[in-house]
């Protein structure tokens, strides 16, 4: 589903080269719910960005559903990303002037699909995330937890192969966070592949695999849950 082969990402810092990730080999299977943990600066977000085509490796290869995300043009990468990857961020990233249904439908509207068609799909996703009554609300009329639900619905609009979440509850209280994790867990139970970056062990415990990074490389990869009981 997602595969990294000897993938590295380095940055130029003055005269020095700094590796954010070093020679990572990783295979994520369809239907997995992988949590990526590690101290800040360990390369968690960089790894997520490589998986989702938000960034490209300096060396090595990244494949999503067998398609290479490395060595392709920015335009090709943008198309792959838009059609196959759903992103959820810590700060929701919703457009303030658009309603929930418009925010959710935006990725498809940008693809040129007619609003009438997009609206139906966006509404059904909002229903799926428990916001059937909020479709016409703008972000400033929604709570933090509701905004994140809208962001999750938006991430799902293109039926992505994988849902990537970067500290999705970093900005929410623990009760609201729990509801978001339950929502993600429910989506995973329905088959959605999820990769989530988190520093919170309580969040990681919802997944079925935990990868720990240190200094840009995986140091631990454990399966948890039923199969490991």
């Amino acid at each position, binding site marked *: 589903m997602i595969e990294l082969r000897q993938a590295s990402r380095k940055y130029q810092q003055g005269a020095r080269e700094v590796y954010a990730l070093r020679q990572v080999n990783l295979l994520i299977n369809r239907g997995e719910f992988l949590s990526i943990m590690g101290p800040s600066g360990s390369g968690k977000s960089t790894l997520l960005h490589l998986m989702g085509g938000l960034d490209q490796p300096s060396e090595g290869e990244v494949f999503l559903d067998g398609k290479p995300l490395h060595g392709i043009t920015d335009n090709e990468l943008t198309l792959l990303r838009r059609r196959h990857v759903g992103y959820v961020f810590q700060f929701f990233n919703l457009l303030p002037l658009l309603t929930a249904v418009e925010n959710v439908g935006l990725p498809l509207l940008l693809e040129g699909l007619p609003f009438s068609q997009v609206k139906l799909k966006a509404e059904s996703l909002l229903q799926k995330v428990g916001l059937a009554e909020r479709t016409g609300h703008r972000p400033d009329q929604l709570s933090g937890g509701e905004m994140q639900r809208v962001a999750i619905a938006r991430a799902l609009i293109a039926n992505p192969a994988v849902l990537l979440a970067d500290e999705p509850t970093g900005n929410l209280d623990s009760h609201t966070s729990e509801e978001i994790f339950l929502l993600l867990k429910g989506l995973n139970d329905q088959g959605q592949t999820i990769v989530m970056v988190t520093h919170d062990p309580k969040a990681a415990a919802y997944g079925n695999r935990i990868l720990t990074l240190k200094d840009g490389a995986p*140091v631990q990869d454990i399966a948890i849950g039923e199969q490991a009981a």
Partner: protein
Amino acid sequence: MSIKYALLGILAEGDLHGYELKASFDAKVGEFWSLNYGQIYSTLDRLEKEGLVTHDRQAQEKRPDRKIFSITPEGRNELAQWLATPVAKVRALRDEFFVKLVFMDKNHPAAILALIDKQKVLYLRHMNRLTQRKIALKTEADPGDLLTTELLLDAGLFHAEADIKWLTLCEAKMKAGGDNKE
């Protein structure tokens, strides 16, 4: 903390015989506390001597009489006082892992760091089990004790999280200590 108050709490909701008491105990706090019949009957004996509980005999066909226990007004008083008093004793620090840490060779931090890693995995698995249990709870019946059971599982999760954070600190400090020695 003794069994005493748990039994008084159960009897405050209604009279029960020993078997029912055990079943109710298991349903309410069995998630984190297991008791055998011997402990229940010896505690009931003591509570009767203290005048907090009393019993009636109920005749049964072809079987010996059984005792139906009930709480006395003194028992209700004692329970109410206990419920209103905060718990003075904080959790003990006598964790088995801590004892291991004391006896491990500090000149070989690699072995300690390896143990810390393994210990963290155990806590993460434990947290995953508690989480699965919590999710399963949402589809179960008996809403009466749902909230307390869920809060209890939350407590387990928070404690395990604290343990993981503490292990991470151990790791960092041990590494820093090792670096300073060089």
